[in-house]
């Protein structure tokens, strides 16, 4: 046999092996880390239990998390206790029995859910606390650093009402629920700064229970009692609408420096634009939603037992005034409300 007869076969075999290795290395050019990550997330269940699904920030947190869940093939359930702490505790207990992979929740006050949070971690469920910290640390906390925010607000007050401003130095604080994290920690931050500034006098520090009508009634009386009131701090812009209305109706808009904080929903931008708020600290609830999903994704991929990794993710915030409000600065809660229905 002539050797040249085998040349096509040899050539063919060489080509085949070359293509084979090329094909094999084309597989190797795929991202080897992507599939394990997707597998860690796929099919998992996220249970969302805020204080209520009826307010703008909760809708943003849930909506953004749901968008992430849908993208990665996860299940997402929502429970709405409608501001009732009892209903919330009940729902949490039944969630522990149902055993989702992750529970995303919010503490109505420091103590109510503390025992249940520990139980959930012990039962093998990752727990993420949003916005309002409880007395117990679980896998992740996503929320603003309210103590630092309180300090920022106090410093704004000192600038507007302190020694060099020529004003009376009297301020009023409108709290939410006295033992709710948002209120409690902001007040801590405020008072820690103010104790070094005796020229600022806190003439009133009442709780408005997150209700704009109560905030309005409180502020109206305070303005009445202290016509030279210089500034007001309200711990949440949802009730700050009422406080601002009281200031406007007393004819003191512009005289009283009003600072509040919130998640950046459209109502905050509107209130800044029309002068109801003098300044607002925006901690961007949409960004918090993204942080929540990032935390879920990290925890599920790390595959540690729930309660092993514990971290605090503090949301960035910015101080906004009227000049910072442009189209698109704030977000519309209606789109997220629709997602969660």
């Amino acid at each position, binding site marked *: 046999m002539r050797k040249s007869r085998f040349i096509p076969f040899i050539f063919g075999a060489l080509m085949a092996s070359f293509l084979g290795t090329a094909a094999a290395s084309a597989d190797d050019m795929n991202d080897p880390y992507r599939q394990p990550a997707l597998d860690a997330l796929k099919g998992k269940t996220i249970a969302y239990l805020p204080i209520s699904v*009826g307010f703008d920030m909760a809708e943003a947190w849930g909506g953004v998390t749901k968008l992430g869940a849908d993208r990665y093939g996860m299940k997402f359930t929502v429970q709405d206790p409608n501001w009732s702490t009892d209903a919330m505790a009940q729902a949490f207990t039944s969630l522990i029995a149902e055993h989702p992979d992750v529970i995303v929740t919010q503490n109505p006050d420091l103590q109510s859910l503390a025992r249940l949070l520990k139980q959930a971690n012990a039962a093998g469920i990752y727990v993420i606390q949003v916005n309002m910290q409880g007395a117990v640390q679980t896998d992740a906390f996503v929320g603003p650093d309210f103590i630092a925010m309180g300090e920022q607000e106090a410093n704004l007050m000192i600038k507007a009402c302190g020694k060099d401003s020529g004003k009376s130095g009297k301020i009023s604080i409108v709290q939410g629920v006295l033992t709710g994290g948002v209120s409690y920690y902001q007040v801590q931050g405020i008072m820690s700064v103010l104790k070094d500034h005796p020229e600022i006098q806190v003439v009133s520090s009442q709780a408005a229970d997150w209700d704009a009508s109560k905030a309005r009634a409180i502020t*109206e009386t305070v303005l009445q009692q202290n016509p030279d009131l210089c500034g007001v701090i309200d711990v949440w812009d949802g009730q700050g609408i*009422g406080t601002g209305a009281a200031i406007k*109706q007393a004819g003191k808009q512009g005289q009283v420096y009003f600072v509040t904080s919130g998640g950046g929903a459209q*109502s905050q931008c509107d209130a800044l634009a029309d002068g109801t708020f003098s300044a607002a600290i925006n901690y961007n609830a949409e960004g918090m939603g993204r942080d929540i999903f990032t935390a879920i994704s990290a925890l599920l991929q790390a595959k540690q037992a729930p309660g092993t990794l514990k971290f605090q993710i503090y949301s960035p915030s910015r101080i906004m005034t009227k000049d910072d409000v442009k189209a698109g600065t704030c977000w519309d809660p209606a789109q997220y409300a629709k997602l969660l229905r």
Partner: protein
Amino acid sequence: MNIRRVFGKFNQERIVFTLAVILFVIFSMTLNRFLTADNIVALLRSVAVLGVLGLAMVVVVLGRGIDLSLVANMAISVAWAIQLVNTGTSVGVAMTLGLAFAFGMSLVTGILVAYAEIPSLFATLAMATFIYGFGRAHLITGTDVVYLPHNIGWIAGIGQGSFVNIPMPIIVAAVATLIAFLFLRFTKRGRFIYAMGDNFAAARIAGIAVRPMLVFQYVLAGCIAYLAGIITATSVEAMNTRIVNSNMIYDVILVVVLGGVGLSGGKGGVRNVIVGTLLIGILLNGMTIMDIQYTVQNVIKSLILLLAIVIDSIVNPRDEQTGQQGDI
């Protein structure tokens, strides 16, 4: 007994009025800036809505009923009306639709009480839950606080405007009180309500159309509640549907009972509501000035109510006539 002879003329209304005057004097002397015109105006303004709701409640209570669905009806109908304006409906149409919703829901309540003969306590309790649930599930589907839009027009003046330096809520409440007083005292229907409350069976035998009148009471209460809701929403520039879960309805009952309107019906009138509202207003205003927390304020309110009822039962003990009727 001596007390009876000396204070025999003191029914609950007079006791409460005396308490109000005493508190007023004490606060004027001890609290800074209590007795200024601005503070009195703020005091009246903070209870204007409560007073209007008290009027709605008194119409029903005089006819021996009770309406626990007032706050739910008010919140959902007004929130829906504002939401319609926000999504583009014209203000007039939206407000009319809101009123129609309040009218319709109270019509159903009235029919349940009058024709299905369900006791008013249960019927209105159930309707309150139904209205709130239906409203939040199908009508107010966004956030539970509906913000007032800036283009709402002259209606905003009801909560925010003023007339000769008196805020509009007080004026609206005063006008509503006057109309309610004239209605109950001088019209046929008003007297029929008293008759039905005093002795339902006798009223029916005497020829009063009791069932339509019952329905009319609840519808009237619902419409007055809608007015109260408009005042609230325009004052705070938002309608917070969460008030349905709060104690507001019990505050309304407090104002009515405190003023001396018997829950057994047929006794009392608009003046009682005014007296009750005044006492609550003075109390709340004084306590806020003293910087007392809201939770403690509730405790004090309830203690005052107990005090008034205890004094009333000592001074006017139950006799054959009043003992028979019971409370609800």
